[in-house]
């Protein structure tokens, strides 16, 4: 693996974001606005359906905001012909996918630094404190899955007509098992649902999801960018 090329690709995404602030700012605004919308939509007091419903809302908002980031980053590259430059470069195609997955992962983590406390404030501040370590592990594992598979699917969607509509349509079926796993793991961090064995099982599931789709992404991305 060409380490220098990989670092340069990730750096390119991060520098573009630092200069333009197009993606992360939009993601944070979107996710916080979604929480406010859900909060008003569900009315005052505790969330109907309890902790599980609240964590469901959290992960649905995060999946949607990830799609926002993926669509924007690929569109930006097409607009500025960065994509053509990447394809002309003598690097392994899988590295392009890996770098895109890493930068998306970084964007997601940055968003969650704001989103998780905001979620707590809006939905669960009256309840007991969660198991922070497990919560962070669950969030990171889910982020890896979203970033790895999202980068592959966004590559497919970016070449089609109506690509803005195509990305969510292609990605959401894969988001269902991820959201199920992430909600299950996150809910397990909040008392009284905490259980050591179940927590391990849920984190293990998220790790399995990541492994499967990292392997698929690594193996299949070269067919997405053959042009």
């Amino acid at each position, binding site marked *: 693996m060409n380490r220098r090329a990989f670092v340069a690709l990730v750096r390119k995404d991060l520098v573009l974001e630092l200069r333009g602030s197009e993606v992360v700012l939009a993601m944070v605004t979107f996710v916080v606005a979604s929480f406010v919308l859900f909060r008003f939509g569900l009315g005052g007091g505790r969330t109907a359906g309890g902790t599980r419903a609240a964590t469901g809302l959290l992960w649905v908002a995060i999946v949607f905001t990830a799609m926002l980031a993926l669509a924007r980053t690929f569109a930006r590259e097409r607009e500025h012909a960065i994509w053509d430059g990447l394809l002309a470069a003598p690097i392994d195609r899988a590295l392009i996918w890996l770098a895109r997955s890493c930068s998306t992962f970084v964007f997601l983590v940055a968003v969650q630094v704001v989103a998780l406390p905001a979620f707590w404030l809006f939905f669960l501040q009256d309840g007991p404190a969660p198991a922070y370590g497990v919560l962070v592990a669950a969030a990171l594992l889910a982020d890896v899955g979203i970033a790895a*598979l999202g980068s*592959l*699917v966004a590559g*497919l*969607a970016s*070449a*089609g*007509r*109506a*690509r803005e509509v*195509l990305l969510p*349509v*292609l990605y*959401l*079926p*894969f988001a*269902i*098992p*991820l959201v*199920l*796993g992430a909600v*299950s793991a996150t809910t397990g961090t909040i008392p009284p649902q905490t259980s050591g064995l179940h927590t391990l*099982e*849920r984190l293990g*599931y998220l790790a*399995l*999801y990541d492994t*499967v*789709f990292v392997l*698929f992404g690594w193996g*299949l991305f070269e*067919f*997405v960018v*053959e*042009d």
Partner: protein
Amino acid sequence: MRDRTTAARLDRATCAALVTAVLMPVALGLIFFYVPNDADQGFSQRIFYFHVPIAMTTYALFAWGALNAARYLWTGDLSLDLRSYVPMHLGVIFGTLTLVTGSFWAKVSWGTWWYWGSTELNTFLIIFLFYCAYFMLRFSVDPGEKRARYSAVYALLGVGLIPISVLAVHLGQDVIHPITFTDHGAQMDGSMLFTFLMALAAMLSLAVAMYLVELRGKRLDEQVTRLRRLAEGTR
């Protein structure tokens, strides 16, 4: 003179249609006039002989489509693209029938059109949505090598999605879906098993016949399009 390969395909399609024409009435006869009522669910349990074979045929079609997608990516043979697309298309039709018959069975057995605690129903729904999305991708890319490649990549992702979805749905749920096939074999008597196997054979042969006919139609369509382009070019 007739093209030998076309003649061979025609024969296979006709044979499959003839086998279906024999098996389907036999299976229907067995379902309605031979097999006894289920001790627990009564007459309504007969929907099992439609629902389960249709669901199994759907999975078989998706598996065949994914296998041809992998073969396409491996060999680059463009004819495999249609062999991958046609089973996906039929799989979505059979999948719709699975959801409809499953929904009816759920209403009769559990009193509800859909039960979110059922592993089988929910896994099938996720996979069905995935294959519906496959068509969105396919129809948003112009025909040709690129469309074939993108469709194949997406179809292969389904191979990862199926086991992952089964595990996800298992994570926190209560199982009420009837389990007929366990580690100890089929949980039904001889006449029921025979009827079920006949219904499965009829459904599989119907799928094979539809696959061969649609494949031939799509190939003819491609040839007509190519000829039309050639004619326009010489004008």
